[in-house]
């Protein structure tokens, strides 16, 4: 077990090195968890904002995103756009499988910030703390992007050639993609 953890940490180090550009997109890590591609689209008003990120788990233990806090908002909840409605994400939705990932993206799971102290503007960053069932909390500096910002992965999602690849990578664990980092 210890050996495995050690291996995970070593791999994590490699991943961190390989994860170039991770820093400016809100990359943070703790234990086997790595948070990346975090962003907040500049909200319309200070009443409500959304946040997106990807949590990768390169350890052998599954974890769960328990809660999210931020000093900028009174309330941060984990929501899911399901068809045409929004609902609170259940614990199954928040699971981060071993060697898998949890994707919070536009049109799917997202963080919902309510009653913000001020309206975050493009170019600023918002501090967000992610709390997990097992792993220690992770602090993420979430950059505020334009209201219409879409990460590159979402854009490639539109192309029919790559859409099947993208959607399957959401479902299956990233064992194949993490091995490609070695």
């Amino acid at each position: 077990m210890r050996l495995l953890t050690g291996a995970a940490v070593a791999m994590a180090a490699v991943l961190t090195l390989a994860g170039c550009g991770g820093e400016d997109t809100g990359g943070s890590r703790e234990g086997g968890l790595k948070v990346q591609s975090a962003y907040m689209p500049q909200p319309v008003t200070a009443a409500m904002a959304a946040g997106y990120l990807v949590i990768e788990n390169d350890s052998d233990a599954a974890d769960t995103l328990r809660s999210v806090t931020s000093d900028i908002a009174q309330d941060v909840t984990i929501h899911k756009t399901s068809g045409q409605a929004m609902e609170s994400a259940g614990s199954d939705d928040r699971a981060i499988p071993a060697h898998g990932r949890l994707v919070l993206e536009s049109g799917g799971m997202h963080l919902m910030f309510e009653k913000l102290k001020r309206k975050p503007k493009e170019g600023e960053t918002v501090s967000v703390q992610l709390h997990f069932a097992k792993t220690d909390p992770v602090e993420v500096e979430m950059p505020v992007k334009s209201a219409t910002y879409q990460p590159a992965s979402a854009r490639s999602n539109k192309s029919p050639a790559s859409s099947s690849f993208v959607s399957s990578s959401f479902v299956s664990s990233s064992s194949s993609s993490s091995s490609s980092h070695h």
Partner: protein
Amino acid sequence: MRTKSMNSTNSMNSTKKTYAAAALLALAALTLSACGSSGDDANAPVADVSAESGTDKAATVLDKPFEKPDLVLTDTQGKSYDFRKETDGKPTLVYFGYTNCPDVCPLTMSNIAVAEKEVSKKLPKSELADLRVVFVTTDPERDTPKALGEWLKGIDPDVVGLTGDFDTIQAGARTLGISIDPPTKDKNGKVTSMHGTQVIAFSPKTDGGYVLYGEDATVEDYAKDLPKLLKGENP
């Protein structure tokens, strides 16, 4: 060489983007017209319609456009707004959503607003002057004219925001193949509302709702298509 089976495959692909009844209607229309052609290769209009879908185009051009909904609602000034009358002969984009929506609703409206701005740099002002962008709330209880006005001010003050009787809104949405349930309140007082799945573009030439955009349509998609939509042409 376009065969009939290709047509139906393509139209199936396109409907994946929009799962509302509208898409099913469009599919039904396509299927019907494909059947009607009975193996004849002269079904060019059908081929034109489904030719949109094999690519990564955001737009779905409807074979059978929607009639404009009969919506008489209240605008952000608190004045009565007759949708058919006000948008008569004008290129019009309509979206159904609500302001307490962090994810899809502001993104959709911002995409259109930014696209409009980009297009305004290239086209003469007069060409864009007729464009009507209309946001109809699905949560009229919380989205008062004032609340709607404040929210839209943060996106684009030129957008027409409409609120009013939920049943009227629901019925209007239904004629566009958009099904919306009334907002529900859970035991903690949290309200859950629904938003439409698509933006509908109405032609200035026919007043028909002839193009659909799903939630994955980007600024670039709208910016690319707007000049055509302004003229009632197929994007």
